């Protein structure tokens, strides 16, 4: 195993010297991407993302609940990622491990900090009753770069979400779900773009093999207004300041291309 890993690493590094990648892509190329929405009828929103052989299914459920005490005028979003063992020999059954937790939190930050969802519009009764949006990322096949696939799936699923309008009767204090549906108030489209660093080279959208041998990686989430809403350097390795600048520029460019592929945009 360790020996195979070292041979694979040598091979990948050898190719990179000539700006080639193990699967034939250029250093700045994403794998083929498809995004299909409304794949789970029982969920208020959903998206199936295929990024090369990586497959991610995101489901959105919307409930009613209480706001956080310190944020009485905001709805609640919560992001959970399940690395189910169906998706990879490297996943184990059990509660989310540090990889799944980090991934969920970076996806969540990208959405939250860009204010991609107008949380104020999710309030029904201030301080008492708001919509609670669950973003559940279910990894189906892990062939690398789960973070970008998850972030793309999350925003695509949110865009596809339809929720019943509600009417609140102040006298009876009752909430009535109407037959009429409305969209979630999604106002921005943050897209994460990840580059791995392998022996001094930077490659975008690393696949599983590349992730096995990389030193570290960095993810930049940008929106269509030119803002960054999350940055995360992950795993080991190190980056130079100029590399950060390069990565940021590339993130904008790739995010624009990806945004084209999201249904309904």
């Amino acid at each position, binding site marked *: 195993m360790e020996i195979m890993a070292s041979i694979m690493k040598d091979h990948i590094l050898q190719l990179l010297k000539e700006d080639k990648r193990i699967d034939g892509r250029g250093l700045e190329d994403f794998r083929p991407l498809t995004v299909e929405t409304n794949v*789970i*009828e*029982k*969920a208020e929103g*959903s998206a199936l993302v295929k990024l090369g*052989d990586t*497959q991610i*299914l995101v*489901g*959105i*459920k919307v*409930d009613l609940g209480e706001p956080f005490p310190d944020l009485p005028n905001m709805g609640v979003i919560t992001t*959970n990622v*399940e690395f*189910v*063992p*169906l*998706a*990879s*020999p490297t996943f184990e*059954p059990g*509660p*989310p491990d540090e990889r799944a937790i980090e991934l969920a939190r970076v996806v969540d930050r990208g959405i939250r900090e860009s204010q991609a969802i107008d949380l104020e519009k999710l309030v029904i009764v201030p301080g008492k009753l708001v919509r609670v949006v*669950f973003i*559940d990322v*279910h990894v*189906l*096949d*892990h*062939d690398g770069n789960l973070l970008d696939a998850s972030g793309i799936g999350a925003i695509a699923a949110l865009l596809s979400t339809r929720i019943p309008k509600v009417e609140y009767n102040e006298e009876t204090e009752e909430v009535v779900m109407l037959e009429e549906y409305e969209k979630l108030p999604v106002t921005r489209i943050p897209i994460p773009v990840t580059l791995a660093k392998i022996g001094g080279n930077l490659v975008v959208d690393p696949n*599983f093999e590349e992730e096995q041998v990389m030193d570290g990686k960095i993810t930049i989430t940008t929106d269509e207004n030119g803002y960054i809403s999350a940055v995360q350097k992950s795993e080991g390795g190190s980056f130079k300041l100029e590399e950060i600048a390069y990565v940021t520029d590339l993130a904008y460019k790739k995010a624009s291309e990806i945004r084209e592929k999201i249904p309904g945009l």
Partner: protein
Amino acid sequence: MMGKPEGLKLIDENGYRLDGRKKYELRKIKMEVGVLKSADGSAYVEWGKNKIMAAVYGPREIHPKHLQKPDRAILRVRYNMAPFSVEERKKPGPDRRSVEISKVIRGALEPAVILELFPRTSIDIFIEVLQADAGTRVAGITAASLALADAGIPMKDLVAACAAGKIDGEIALDLNKEEDNYGEADVPVAIMPIKNDITLLQMDGYLTKEEFLEAVKLAIKGAKAVYQKQREALREKYLKIVEEVGE
């Protein structure tokens, strides 16, 4: 089985069920084999509104070594529901229901797998319910059996599964969610069709002996139809490989 709403009829005067099926009619079933790259074998089954993915890993080394059996592989099964697979969001992680279902599915598949060929290893089956609409365990067994075949695990026979139940006082095939909620009984069955061996049998409800045996027989018929679809799905996968190799 919950209290049925006043006046709800699950079978109408013409013998049609709420989704338009006849009493002995299966829901629409689609199967696809080899849908995941990472797994050694995999399959996807759509069964009515059920959407189920199954993956097989193994035979492979077992991590906590004291679980190893010197004379055979161990089979492990994990049935899991995605949080968004049901009306009310399900908290992630196993609940008591999925622990039981994982156990009976293992018992349904074990008789088919020739475990003696791979001592000291495990064969791990993961079933993910992406959308649930009653009958997930029989759909899951059906998908898992395909995934085992896709992984090249030697088997005595495929395991095919189907449920029957009782609605509005009559035995009917393959209940959907509404029928399961407001029906009188559900009888999931799995078989190895070559020898008519029953490897899963449960009953949840309240039936006479005669009704119960009628339901079992009907479910076996359903499972045999499912078996044909399984064989077709595997044949398709085989043809695809032949084609690819030919290229």
